[in-house]
């Protein structure tokens, strides 16, 4: 997989999630199920590495990028992780104008709820994968 593809796919996943691990379902869909760039086991390991190190939880995407496309993929993933954060600056200005609108607030809440539901599903899949690995070793 090319570094540009890694950047664009991760940007899509990260740019449509609202927490460090919120991108996991889309990454699972794009990298594991659709493009087979990494295996489910590798994705689980990437999450493990990301959760075992200090710093942002979302940095697990750097491991995903490395597994999919080597060091170029890791750099592309790092850039994809940073890019959406820049949206915070115009949001800081807009939030004072728009967030008091009930429908905008309700839409944001709905996205957060759906993110939580998707994360539960990803967590269950990870657990099943890990249990299979444990069973295989024994």
């Amino acid at each position, binding site marked *: 997989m090319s570094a540009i593809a890694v950047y664009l796919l991760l940007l899509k*996943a*990260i740019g*449509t*999630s*609202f*927490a*460090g*691990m919120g991108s*996991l379902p*889309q990454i699972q*869909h794009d990298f594991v199920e659709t493009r087979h760039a990494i295996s489910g086991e590798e994705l689980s*390991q*990437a*999450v*493990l590495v990301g959760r*075992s*190190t*200090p*710093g*942002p*939880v*979302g*940095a697990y995407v*750097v491991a995903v990028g*490395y597994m999919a496309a080597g060091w170029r993929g*890791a750099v592309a993933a*790092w850039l994809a*992780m*940073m890019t*959406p*954060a*820049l949206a*915070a*600056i115009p*949001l*800081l200005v807009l*939030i004072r104008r728009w967030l*008091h609108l*009930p*429908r905008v607030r309700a*839409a*944001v*809440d*709905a*996205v957060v*709820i*759906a993110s*939580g*539901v*998707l*994360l539960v*599903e990803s*967590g*269950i899949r*990870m657990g099943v994968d*890990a*249990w299979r*690995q*444990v069973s295989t*070793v024994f």
Partner: protein
Amino acid sequence: MTVEQQPVPISLARLTWIIVRDVNRTLGGGLAAMELLRRTFIRNRSMDEFDNAGLVAVSRLTPGTNVLAYCAALGWSLRRWPGALASLLAASLPGSLIVGGLTVALVSVHEIPAVRMLLAVGVLAATFLVLSSAVSLLRPYVRSAVLVRASVIAAVAVGLMLAGVTPVRILLLSAALGAAIGAGTGANGE
């Protein structure tokens, strides 16, 4: 900051150092790092609780990793664009380098049976962390004031998921549904 309490200026180098230090010494997610940053910058009188509340709200609304959005907004508040970019680099680069290095090490040893066993156990533990992230996202909505609406949205999301709809589409459809049936009490009771 109120008019009476002007923020104490901070240099770009000091801003960068504080973010490197506070973000990259926490395990367990961005909330812990944001709490450390809040304490440091309020103690330095570079911001107050009101400023912090605005930054937290923005970080929750910005797509992606919350703590990176918090740092970008914080840097912009204190030193405009140079501050935002320096803060973003300071928050993301050290952790990413560690993750990259660990991944290289992992790829070269992960076929060893003992390592595979340890990894599997570690992934099982990480599974609980992922589920706890989901719980922390959903917890504010488990209140009587918003529970019915939140349950409807969650049920629709589950239905779409079972129907094989992609996550991006599920999020977009949820946003549209939330806007259509919403207009009520938000997660913070506002």
